[in-house]
């Protein structure tokens, strides 16, 4: 056993370190189309102290460290580009505190979305957090580290990173720090009024430190839940339709989608509006107000509400939506990857057309759509491309389509989210040079040896 392996074993225990071929293989790749790179070690820490010791060692020895949660980002952000240590955080999954009055939970970083939801349902049934539609093993920290979004992003707090009330982080040099109110007083209730250091770890893809604990906002979990589905053929009407729904203030989650299948719906766009309420009456009233807001469209017979059959309704009401994971089997090949571009609502029609143009030209299938973030402050527009991982040429086509889509999204005035390293490079090139330099300086200060998730947000 080499010395590093020995030290890692001392820190986390022999059972939780591996440099075996099997783990090197699995942790060298994700579900998307990015090239694999093998780690030298996979380490499963059990506490913030262990993370601190591992990162401290890595810093002294100048070994790359890649934090990983569910490993479900799809765009290769947990692939260790330069080898080193993959820190799989999922053993750290304790739910530490739920404060019902101040509406927040404190969890260890590797806590899965599903486990927190199940815990809240059981012990604090009036509360919920905003769940992404990622598979439920996705982690709370992995999701906020990339500015994820979910079921309450429209109605409540925007991106999940905006719902963070505090963090505990191991810095790239090994120190353990607390950020937000928990740095000063016992509670994890707020980032304000302190200088906001939390942002140094949100959207950075694990390049600035390892998050070990997260304070996350909780919201009411109303018992009534229903869904309306609005169909239209006019792509250009999408921003207006979405705006009208948003402005009612009645919808919890709003998702817009466009797909070539089933054939009879090709060309139609579907806006799925999730509504929650505390009573039947409230639910009925909310639905009525939303219907009313779109009267103009269904009176002119340009569009209308679709009767939702029970099985489809069950799919739409499911959180997270298993149906999205099924998309990976569209090409009978266990894969999809998507460009999720954060963009202004008014760009949605152009994004749809661009997605169809790119996929038509390259010859791949697609699902396009958007989740509304905030009260229409932006949308996460997804260009999702399924592929058959056993078909190298199809994988290649999807990789090309993703690159082109990233470029197109930027040209449209959007910014690719959780994007592949090549997408990050596109962004950095287009970024104000002063901003880029500031990012570099910050990384230089936090991570002098550049050990954290190398390749990501790296100015070429």
């Amino acid at each position, binding site marked *: 056993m080499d010395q590093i392996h020995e030290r890692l074993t001392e820190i986390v225990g022999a*059972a*939780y370190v*591996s440099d*075996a*071929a*099997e*783990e090197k*293989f*699995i*942790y060298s790749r994700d*579900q998307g189309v990015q090239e694999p790179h093998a780690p030298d070690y*996979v380490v*499963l820490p059990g506490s913030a102290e262990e993370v601190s010791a591992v990162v401290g060692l890595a810093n002294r020895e100048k070994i790359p460290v890649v934090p990983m949660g*569910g*490993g*479900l980002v799809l765009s290769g952000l947990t692939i260790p580009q330069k080898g080193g240590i993959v820190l*799989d955080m*999922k*053993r750290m999954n304790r739910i530490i505190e739920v404060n019902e009055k101040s509406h927040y939970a404190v969890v260890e970083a590797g806590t*899965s979305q*599903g*486990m927190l*939801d*199940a*815990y809240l349902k*059981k012990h604090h049934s009036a509360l919920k957090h905003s769940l992404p539609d990622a*598979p*439920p*093993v*996705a982690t709370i920290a992995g999701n906020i580290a990339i500015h994820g979004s979910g079921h309450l992003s429209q109605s409540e707090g925007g991106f999940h990173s905006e719902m963070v009330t505090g963090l505990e982080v191991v810095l790239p040099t090994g120190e353990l720090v607390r950020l937000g109110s928990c740095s000063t007083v016992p509670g994890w209730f707020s980032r304000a009024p302190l200088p906001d250091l939390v942002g140094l770890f949100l959207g950075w893809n694990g390049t600035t430190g390892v998050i070990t604990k997260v304070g996350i906002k909780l919201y009411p979990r109303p018992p009534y839940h229903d869904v309306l589905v609005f169909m239209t053929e006019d792509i250009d009407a999408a921003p207006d339709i979405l705006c009208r729904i948003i402005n009612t203030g009645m919808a919890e989650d709003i998702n817009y989608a466009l797909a070539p299948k089933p054939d009879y719906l090709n060309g139609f766009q579907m806006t799925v509006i999730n509504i929650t309420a505390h009573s039947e009456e409230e639910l009925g009233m909310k639905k009525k107000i939303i219907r009313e807001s779109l009267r103009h469209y269904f009176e002119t017979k340009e569009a209308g509400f679709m009767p939702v059959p029970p099985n489809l309704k069950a799919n739409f009401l499911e959180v997270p939506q*298993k149906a999205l*994971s*099924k998309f*990976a*089997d569209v090409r*009978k*090949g*266990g*894969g*999809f990857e998507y460009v999720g571009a954060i963009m202004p609502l008014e760009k949605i029609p152009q994004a749809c057309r661009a997605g169809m143009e790119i996929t038509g030209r390259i010859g791949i299938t697609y699902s396009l759509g958007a989740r509304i973030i905030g009260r229409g402050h932006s949308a996460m527009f997804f260009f999702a491309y399924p592929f*058959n*991982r*056993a078909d190298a040429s199809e994988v290649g086509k999807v990789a090309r389509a993703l690159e082109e889509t990233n470029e197109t999204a930027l040209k449209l005035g959007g910014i690719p989210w959780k994007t592949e390293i090549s997408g990050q490079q596109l962004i950095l090139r287009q970024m104000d040079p002063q901003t880029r330099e500031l990012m570099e300086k910050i990384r230089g200060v936090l991570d002098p040896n550049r050990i954290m998730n190398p390749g990501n947000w790296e100015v070429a």
Partner: protein
Amino acid sequence: MDRDYTELLHRCFRCGWCKLPTNYQDFNCPAYLKYRFESFASGGRMWLIRAWLNGEIEPGERFAKILYSCVTCRNCVEACALPNIKDRLVDIFVAARADLVEQGRIPPAVRDYLKALSVSGNPYKMPQEHRGNWAEGLGIERYHGQEYLFYVGDVGSYDEVGMRMARSVAALLQSAGVSLGILGEEETSDGNDARALGEKGLADYLAGQNIGTFRNKGVKKIITLSPHGYNAMRNEYPVCGGVFEVFHYTQIINLLLGGRIRPGEYLKRVTYHDPCYLGRWNNEYGAPRRILGSIRGLVFVEMDRNRNNALCCGGGGGNFFTDMLGTGPDLSSRARVREALATGAEIIAVACPQCYKMLDDAVKAEGAQDAIEVKEVSEIVSASWGSHL
């Protein structure tokens, strides 16, 4: 490996739904719960098998450990997001094990189990003549045309806890006037776990032996002690030409409730642990619950993970004998005991000799002997029905 399977391997998205139950409460894949590397989850296994077949990795010791740490509990089958592959997941793992068996690359513990089964007809390396010892003093006759054959299997025949359970079930059925006989030294291992370990040839041979004996004796109906035997005889024996009416003993007790079995009072708080080979494999969730529900004074509490979401005790797929999960607090049996304790139950009711032993050991490992006890369903019925016995 069968083409039907190899063509499914690359369709696994490795999205991880398979690690959780459908209510997401906690990790529900015993191998993943124990080892925590992605490689030990069903998705990891799918990708590694594909890598092996593509020549990207060598099937060494760790690879074999990864394949054999699967306890075939079928949680992944319940939870997988992909309808076109989910039902085949465990079949694929078993098929990959079969390839390892053929290539002689199995872990020593698996080799020892299969060797003992081949040489002695049971994994305990005990003499065949001792198979019927568990029944001593009960006055049960050898099978000679009674309505049912009571088949107890390896654990019921040779393991201390299993034998206790076999005696309890047999005594209850006898006292209820069920016409049954046993095979004693003529019984052979049911082959269920040999099949799960990838030794189809041996499993078929054992099935053939039993089928031959059953036929010669004119057996039509079988009551099994173990859900493992129940599964083999219900689902595998017909493929080997042996069609019988097969019941798990809880199904028979359930049929007799209110008639020949009238449970009395049992003033305990009880939770029930679903055995995978009765529940997820054979969809029998109701019978044991109806039995417990019929007992006066018994307060029945469900664990959060129940029925198709139950956490396996870790003894399935041959692991009861091969122990590929080892020790430690993340053993599923120990996690299960902690889950039972959280319900406030004083008793964990079981309906499988393997679960009985696994959970009994786990109660000790958790140091919870004063708080909770493992009891088998017939023991609870009999305790409530004391005056009838």
